[in-house]
């Protein structure tokens, strides 16, 4: 099984220094959240892992692989799936075609591979929309499609960037239930989130980020007892 180890990572966009020595570890089957307010570097951390942003120094290891030297497509083929916060649906492909684009074999042979029908079972709403163009979906449907499309690549570790941001409360509940099912199926999840309530539902441990630095890490239980940390760094 594969472990993700992010160690002392510094990431820049051009000349602006965004991450200042971020370190994170995720063991197989673990569900970990990355908490913090707007603009603290959550998305940048996920992008650094999937290779869409480059760490200038520090290392990102996944098993034996050094991800800093790899392209996003190579990292994805190692079994890391990325669900961006912008929900980048391919608008002129249908829902089914969007899912099919994501299809690739997984590395873990013990796990049953995902099929379009399997995704429809997890997200029944998508089945009804099967032949609709991706450009005409609601926010919640788009989010389900984005997650489903990434699952089609049979990842072992899922990077989820604020999946419920901006969605209506009923949709949030539905989506959180579905993500929980994924966690229970044994998928490792790194979940970027601002809201500690959602994070608690699916995470075992938390890293709290502020100003591009990890300010706190511990189990969700421990974090709940740290009102000082919560008040200082989180949105309550």
């Amino acid at each position, binding site marked *: 099984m594969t472990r993700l180890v992010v160690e002392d990572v510094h990431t820049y966009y051009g000349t602006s220094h965004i991450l200042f020595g971020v370190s994170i570890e995720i063991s197989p089957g673990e569900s970990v959240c990355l908490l913090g307010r707007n603009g603290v570097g959550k998305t940048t951390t996920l992008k650094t892992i*999937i*290779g*869409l942003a480059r760490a200038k120094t520090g290392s990102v290891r996944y098993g034996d692989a050094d991800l800093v030297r790899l*392209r*996003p*497509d190579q990292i*994805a*083929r190692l079994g890391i799936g*990325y669900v*961006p916060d912008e929900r*980048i649906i*391919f*608008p*002129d*492909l249908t829902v089914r*075609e*969007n899912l*099919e*684009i*994501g299809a*690739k074999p997984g590395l873990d042979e013990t796990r049953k591979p995902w099929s379009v029908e399997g995704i429809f079972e997890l997200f029944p709403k998508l089945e009804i929309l099967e032949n609709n163009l991706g450009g005409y979906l609601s926010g919640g449907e788009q989010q389900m499609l984005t997650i489903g*499309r*990434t699952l089609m*690549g049979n990842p072992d570790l899922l990077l989820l960037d604020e999946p419920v941001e901006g969605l209506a409360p009923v949709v949030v509940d539905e989506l959180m239930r579905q993500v929980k099912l994924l966690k229970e199926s044994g998928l490792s999840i790194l979940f970027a989130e601002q809201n500690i309530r959602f994070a608690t539902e699916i995470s075992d441990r938390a890293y709290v980020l502020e100003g591009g630095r990890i300010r706190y890490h511990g189990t969700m239980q421990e974090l709940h007892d740290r009102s000082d940390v919560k008040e200082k760094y989180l949105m309550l």
Partner: protein
Amino acid sequence: MVYDLTSLLIQLLSGLSRAMMLFLLASGLSLIFGVMNILNFAHATLWMLAGYLTYTLFQFFTATMGESGWWLLPSTFLATAALFALGCLIEFVLIRRMYDRELPEQLLLTFALILIIGDVIKMIWGVDNLRIYMPIEPMEFFDSFVNPYSFVVIGVGVAVAAGLWWFLHHTRYGKTIRAAVHSREMVSALGIRIGAMYTAVFGLGVAVAAMSAGVFLPIVPIGLGIDMDLIVQCFAVVVIGGFGSILGTFVASIIVGVVYSFSVLIWPDGALAIIFVILVAVLIWRPWGLFGTELRS
């Protein structure tokens, strides 16, 4: 001059053949721009190179194995394959470095290619116009005589348009290409090798152009400078149709081809000007082209 129905039909036929040539050239240009955001100024120059190559292969075949118009088939095929390989090589060695550059820099590089390829052609083939003579009997068509080869040309154009459309809409590879038009980063994060795909798309675009050079050799003599003439009209076609849309490129090719061919009949000096009037009108009315999408992220 009398404008009777037959002469109009003949003009229409010639317009449609011209339209097909423009389409085969412009579809590659539009595909490459739509997918990779690269404006390949040298596209028509590569087309011209393919024409010279086809010509030489055709001469070789007829000289060694006897005269026959059918030699155009293997000659075109071989030249198309060679240009596909050259296209892939150009993408891999040069174009690849330009993806994050500004448009003027892209134009500079592809303009340099025009000059280099032009000089290579001058060294190898000289400056004379070349064409292939096909022993084809004119065919009677509504009380008049037309070159039946026009129908071959139109057929090839329609077949390639249908083939490209089918490839882009009904194959996994084609759909991935369309997805990459929208977001290269997302496609790459899904595990797809964008680099290899870009190389193949560039090669494919050049190959479609190369094929048309061979198909048109019996009716369009090839000569230095013809590339500049064509690239300008191709840009007009692509802008009118909307970048990245095969259907748009097809429709715009027909508009430009037919309008040009009728304008030549009525006002030869103003034919190109009329094309540009259409271009400007489309740009004012729909800046993203007839079939293009308004926004790209």
